[in-house]
């Protein structure tokens, strides 16, 4: 008994690729080969950062519980730093200016 479904699916017509198909694929291949590979997410650095944050949080919690200082005490200590605020501001400004100067070649698109 003839199987018409089988016959229909077996006698599928074929198509011919366009004459420029190969060149079109190769253009895409060359483009692909000259492009830089996509940046991968820095999982290792991310992991180290998360671990460091956890460690610091744990250490701070442990120290905090060991020292047994209350919030008002901490505020009093911080208030005593008022006298050195100008020096801290100068130091911060100096560091920022140095960082900006170091970054200038990259920001202007030129190698150092």
């Amino acid at each position, binding site marked *: *008994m*003839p*199987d*018409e*479904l*089988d016959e*229909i*699916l*077996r*006698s*599928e017509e*074929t*198509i*011919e*690729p*366009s004459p420029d*198909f*190969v060149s*079109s*694929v*190769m253009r*895409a*291949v*060359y483009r*692909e*080969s000259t492009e830089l590979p996509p940046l991968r997410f820095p999982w290792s650095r991310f992991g180290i950062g998360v671990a460091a944050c956890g460690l610091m949080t744990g250490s701070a919690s442990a120290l905090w519980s060991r020292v047994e200082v209350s919030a008002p005490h901490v505020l009093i200590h911080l208030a005593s730093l008022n006298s050195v605020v100008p020096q801290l501001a100068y130091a911060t400004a100096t560091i920022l200016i140095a960082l900006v100067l170091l970054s200038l070649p990259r920001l202007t698109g030129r190698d150092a």
Partner: protein
Amino acid sequence: MTSDDQDAAAVARVIAGDPGAFGDIVRRWQHRLVNLAWRFCRHHATAEDMAQEAFLKEYRSLGSFRGESQFSTWLTAVALNTYRSRLHRERPLWLGREAPEPVDTAPGPQTALEQGQRAEIVRRAVLTLPARYRNAICVYYFEGRDTGESARVLGIPEGTLKARLHRARELLRPRFASLGLPLSDLQTEIP
């Protein structure tokens, strides 16, 4: 030099840093990949676009080809995965495009044109099957009804493929019947 040797040589050259050698692979396999894509979308431009995407994917992953299977099997399997993803993304846009008019199923002499339209409707009906059955049917007939090779391309056991082909026929049965074709035509067993 056999086709396998030519493929192996081209793969080695591409991996060594000569992307131009990939052109040999594209020239040798373009017909196969475009026609496999055609069976999944039935639209010439889309088939070429899908085949190009598959070739690019193969170019990127050429280093992962270990030679454990035939190059053609690997190439077809990668292409099939690409087409599956594409179908998953865009299938609703394709179906119905350039669809032939439904034929009159009233008894009477059939012209060659009517038979052609009927065949096209059946082929499109295959595309509306669930993915696992559609893939089984498309690959099985594309591979010249070779269950072993089809199963390797699909990455499933041969027995599973046979079961899917059987189920696909069962699903097609009512659609086939609605075209005025005898139900007995669907009884043929898969070898």
